[in-house]
């Protein structure tokens, strides 16, 4: 099993992700939506690096999760904030780690309750494999394979620095 020492550098991946999106997003028209909590941190970075004009949104998928009936309502649900008109918008959903794809499905379902976007893309720092739905990232600078017993989490230190950590489930 991989150890924390073998994990990618989250800061370097943020920069690489921003570079891969440059020229493929319209600073005046593209809107980012970060998924709580790690995705919001990444969206903040991308928003600044790409000089986007539309304020970025944040989404908490607790009310749309498909495991609610098994696991109940997620504690610490946050308020989703979409500060732009979703109708006709080009939206990039931003998350830290792409895994089963279920969170992305939930986020798309939630976005459609705000309106009908013209196009949705997906940007993630890393793809750890293990997909359970037909979902693929539009922008993804890194991929790795992790056993199901491990969870990859993005963390932010007091100075705002981002790093990955492995958590044994």
């Amino acid at each position: 099993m991989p150890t924390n020492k073998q994990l990618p550098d989250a800061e370097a991946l943020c920069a690489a992700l921003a570079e891969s999106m440059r020229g493929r997003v319209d600073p005046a028209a593209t809107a980012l939506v970060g998924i709580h909590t790690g995705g919001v941190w990444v969206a903040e970075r991308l928003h600044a690096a790409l000089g986007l004009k539309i304020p970025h949104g944040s989404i908490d998928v607790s009310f749309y999760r498909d495991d609610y009936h098994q696991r109940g309502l997620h504690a610490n649900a946050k308020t989703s904030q979409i500060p732009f008109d979703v109708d006709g918008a080009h939206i990039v959903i931003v998350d830290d780690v792409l895994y089963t794809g279920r969170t992305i499905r939930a986020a798309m379902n939630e976005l459609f309750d705000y309106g009908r976007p013209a196009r949705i893309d997906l940007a993630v720092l890393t793809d750890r494999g293990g997909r359970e739905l037909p979902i693929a990232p539009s922008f993804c600078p890194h991929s790795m394979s992790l056993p199901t017993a491990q969870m990859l989490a993005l963390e932010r230190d007091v100075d705002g620095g981002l790093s990955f950590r492995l958590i044994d489930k």
Partner: protein
Amino acid sequence: MNAFGTQQNPQLNGHGELQHLLTIEGLPREVLMRILDTAAPFTEVAEREVKKVPLLRGKSVFNLFFENSTRTRTTFEIAAKRLSADVINLNINTSSASKGETLLDTTDNLAAMQADMFVVRHASSGAPYLIAQHLAATGRDHIHVVNAGDGRHAHPTQGLLDMYTIRHYKTDFTQLTIAIVGDVLHSRVARSQIHALTTLGVPEVRVIAPKTLLPTGVERLGVRVFNDMREGLRGVDVVMMLRLQNERMQGALLPSTQEYFKSYGLTPEKLALAKPDAIVMHPGPMNRGVEIDSAVADGGQAVILPQVTFGIAVRMAVMAMLAGN
């Protein structure tokens, strides 16, 4: 031992999670805070183009109202519908009960229709508890019970929405002086408010009422009693008015409603004794000119309509938490 076995609190399941919401009394502070925290993101759902989330899709929520209440029933109905549940409203005083069916026969029949949740309003204290106990005893504890007001006992979602409102405007419960004014004797709302406020650490809870409208021993709930409204309102951060429950009034507890207004009606002049930034709350429906002056009810310090809006989010949070546990 009862049908709930040795469990300490019949509202909590084996993992300490909320199974039913019957009363605020005895609920740990963490559970109350979790409900308030969970309600916050639900307030935003009402501002979307589609004012719905799919949590209770396919679930059947039965509003069992053995006692009339248009507002409470409507807010529960809206909350359940915004969670995508199917809602069935039964005004039982106009149906089976008048034909002689017992409370538990009614609930058994609805359980046989695959109910997932009962929202119960009843004139008798303890009716929701009796239903929850009966469901547990008959192995149907997957059905959740929410007390929407029982007799003089409790109205927990009203208490919770009041707490949500106070936190929204005043932030920190542990710095507040709060007065509850009016017909405490007949008020399940007052009981739920007092239990919630003391559990959440409000250092001074006052009740203001004439002796005839106070239950004996009310100070044992941890409140300071004032019979003089002017004295009781001095320096408070929050004024929680109660409705004068005309329809519950038995015998001559009060000389007249005019006399009551003079002593216990909230006028601008009496409100001026509270802190300048004090908020005024009322659970509705208001009796203008009886317990509250129109100038106060429509004034800048009243947060009575926000209470209604927050009430939907709080009821959504409660139902979503119960149905997931």
